């Protein structure tokens, strides 16, 4: 009860994709006169009622939260109050966030709504074993188009011979516009998504690889693998990346 819901197809994240900001006259009297502005494009949102719940009219797929702007409606439960307090802590309010100045022109930012849960469509996955860190696992379109596609039969044979121990996951899916595949991966991997962190991981893997190639003895190799495992784990546990707030912005 109190959630905002919308089943409108058009709400799918317009802010990213369409001009959602309008220039308003610099006449101060007009600034606060919302009635003069066209309302036709307003997204239709509905506040869930007791009756809706009894009749199971909506599911979590329909629940949206506002991208605050002009005429934003807030959910009528504690998250609504929370949004209000987030703005107030920063010296803003639902009214003041209406308009801002852009290139000397007072502009108004239109409020929008975004679904809070997203589902990948046509999601498929497969696990693959491989040996060499840079082995081709999935054929890319560029590979396919090349006149001389990379010959992987040699490495495939090596893979069989060596009983490939590295594990990879190939996933394919569709996302609606404005949804982030990095956030899907975050959910899947329960790991941070910032690029510097993944650069570290790649470097750690490469370093472990060099060590294992250099170490002739089997014991040496195993030790380096253990080491790389520990290292990855410790990076994953960086506290700054664990908190729900930190995750949304820590770069």
């Amino acid at each position, binding site marked *: 009860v109190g959630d905002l819901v919308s089943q409108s197809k058009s709400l799918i994240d317009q802010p990213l994709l369409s001009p959602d900001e309008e220039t308003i006259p610099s006449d101060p009297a007009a600034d606060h006169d919302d009635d003069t502005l066209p309302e036709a494009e307003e997204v239709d949102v509905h506040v869930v009622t007791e009756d809706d719940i009894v009749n199971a009219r909506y599911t979590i797929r329909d629940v949206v939260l506002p991208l605050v702007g002009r005429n934003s409606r807030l959910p009528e*439960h504690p998250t609504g109050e929370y949004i209000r307090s987030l703005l107030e802590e920063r010296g*803003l309010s639902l009214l003041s966030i209406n308009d801002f100045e852009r290139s000397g022109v007072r502009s108004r930012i239109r409020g929008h709504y975004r679904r809070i849960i997203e589902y*990948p469509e046509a999601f498929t996955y497969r696990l693959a074993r491989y040996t060499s860190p840079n082995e081709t696992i999935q054929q890319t379109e560029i590979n396919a188009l090349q006149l001389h596609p990379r010959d992987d039969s040699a490495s495939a044979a090596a893979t069989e011979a060596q009983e490939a121990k590295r594990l990879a996951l190939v*996933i394919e899916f569709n*996302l609606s516009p404005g949804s982030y595949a990095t956030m899907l991966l975050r959910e899947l991997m329960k790991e941070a998504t910032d690029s*510097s962190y993944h650069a570290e991981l790649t470097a750690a893997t490469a370093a472990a690889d060099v060590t294992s190639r250099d170490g002739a003895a089997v014991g040496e190799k195993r030790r380096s693998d253990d080491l790389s495992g520990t290292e990855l784990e410790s990076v994953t546990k960086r506290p700054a990346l664990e908190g729900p707030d930190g995750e949304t*912005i820590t770069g």
Partner: protein
Amino acid sequence: VTLLASDLNLLTPSPSLPSLVPEPLAMGHLTGNRFEIVLREIQSDPSVVEAACEGLNSTGYVNYFGLQRFGRGGSESGSHLIGLQIFQAHWKAALDIMFQPNSADRPDILQAKSAFQKGDFSAALQLLPSSMYSEIRVCEKLRSDPHDYAGAYHSIPRSTQLICVHAFQSFIFNLATTHRCDPYPFPALLTPRQDREVWPSGRRG
């Protein structure tokens, strides 16, 4: 973990002859994106990975804006913080955040930002790469009038100003979404029926 992503546009179908359509393409016309991603160096057991995939497919994921939305400045100088200053018309503060050094900066950019902070806009201009167009415009404006922060802010391309404003909206959305999803373990979220139990204090419930 190495990512190899190919982001395939669903709107590019099988090859055909181009023809005229009634409406030009615009932002918002995209119906979606197809992704193929390879995750390497997986340390977990295959059964865990399979369970995670099945779970993701059936219960979805939280629709946060990705970190890309907030620029490279992180929690100290991200675009959303500039957006906040824009809403408050604090032009100098907005510019100061733009020129806040961050760990992703190359050495020459760090030098340029340091020159900016010392007020040496000519030196900053010599160091800034041409790709940092907004920063160049700001420095040019301040070189001619070191106190015209409003003018300097307004010289930033409109689209860039809008990106910062959107980043702030997205930041609030992310925080609010965390707040909304927090009490629920997934997938207990699947029907609104459960909402009543969690928020008896909701105004209409």
